[in-house]
């Protein structure tokens, strides 16, 4: 096992040896609808909105098990999931890999929030050249240390950032969209509850918001 991520025998966090799950817990999870959620280039505000489901989460958890979220922080999902929630847009190579991985392993993939839907606040850089953004941040930055050699970060371990910020559906097929910055917990609940109970996706006008 190597700590160098580029070594041939390098392993990712989801491949690390883990204690087997308690058999009773594993049995209780069987038959539940598997859900995964991850953030790409965003602020995690949509995840906080998910937590705004409050006690409604508990009734949902009778039917649903959340395989991947900010709580487990696995980089990859290890089992096929019925529903994947994607927060944030695509701004670097790692985002592309992660999004493609989720597309491959989720039956239904949902763009949650303005960043996933159209790029959101990070996409404000789309009206500038990437070169100018990096120069502004690292070379001509007002907080640059006088006399220090300006350096734009570049390393094999750092994902290369894309020329523009892309909505998720311009990278892979997305099935549904929940706009909002962030969407209300009510909107996320409505969508998840409908899908879990076999009803079609429907986001009523009363809870569809763009801000």
């Amino acid at each position, binding site marked *: 096992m190597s700590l160098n991520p580029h070594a041939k025998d390098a392993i990712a966090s989801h491949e690390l040896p883990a204690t087997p799950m308690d058999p009773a817990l594993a049995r209780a999870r069987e038959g539940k609808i598997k859900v995964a959620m991850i953030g790409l280039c965003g602020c995690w505000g949509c995840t906080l909105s998910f937590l705004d489901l409050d006690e409604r989460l508990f009734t949902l958890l009778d039917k649903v098990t959340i395989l991947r979220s900010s709580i487990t922080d696995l980089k990859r999902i290890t089992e096929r999931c019925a529903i994947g929630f994607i927060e944030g847009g695509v701004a670097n190579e790692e985002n592309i890999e992660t999004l493609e991985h989720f597309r491959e392993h989720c039956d239904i993939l949902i*763009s949650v929030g*303005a960043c996933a*839907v*159209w*790029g*959101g*606040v990070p*996409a*404000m850089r*789309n*009206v500038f050249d990437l070169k100018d953004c990096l120069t502004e941040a690292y070379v001509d930055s007002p907080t640059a240390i006088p006399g220090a050699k300006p350096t734009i970060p570049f390393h094999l371990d750092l994902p290369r950032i894309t020329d*523009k910020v892309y*909505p998720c*559906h*311009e990278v892979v097929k997305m099935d*549904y*969209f*929940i*706009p909002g*910055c962030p969407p209300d917990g009510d909107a996320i609940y409505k969508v998840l509850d409908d899908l879990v109970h076999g009803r079609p996706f429907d*986001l009523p*006008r009363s809870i*569809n*918001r*763009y*801000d």
Partner: protein
Amino acid sequence: MSIQITIDGRAITAEEGQTLVDVAADNGTYVPTLCYVRDKPCLGTCRVCAVSVNGNVQAGCTVKVSKGMVVETATPDLIDMRKAMVEFLFAEGNHNCPSCEKSGRCQLQAVGYEVDMMVSRFPYRFPVRVVDHASERIWLERDRCIFCQRCVEFIRDKATGRKIFSISHRSDKARIEIDVELANAMPPEQVREAVDLCPVGTIIEKGVGYDDPIGMRKYEIQSLRDRALSTEEGKP
């Protein structure tokens, strides 16, 4: 002269020459409109009010009703066409609702809700159009402009009647312009009128920002649909 037309199969009595979207609204049928301002000359720029008139798709605000007219507003094709028009406008400019002062008071956003838009089917263009802040009280956020021409036609210099706003260039180079000298001569209430008339967040009054709390903003208090269907003055 009173005439009979049908809207979605319903017989309706109207006055000949009335504007179709007004007749529809007065009879409880909401057709989403965006550039149209009731009781002002029709602009016909946004095409969001597409309806079928005697089998032909037309912008409802440009149509004067006439005897025996057969109007359809709610076929799946028309509903999707109107939604596509709104999605097109969202993809064409930079409509960043979370960071816009006009959010909650923006007619483009409100009409987006009315047509059940969640995402644009068109690729987002992210156009580069520089902000014009040369005038004393108006901040011109050009990348939010949808070229409805409301300000161009309806906001004019009080003394001379000259246009204060105009559109320069064409196609994807088109952009809204402001005559700084005339803009600086605008009385404060006319500045506010221009800000309210702008259906997006292009014309912004300097020094005024997010002044209404979320939940208390114009279209949160009363939706665009309810405003259009209400009998009160001063809608939407």
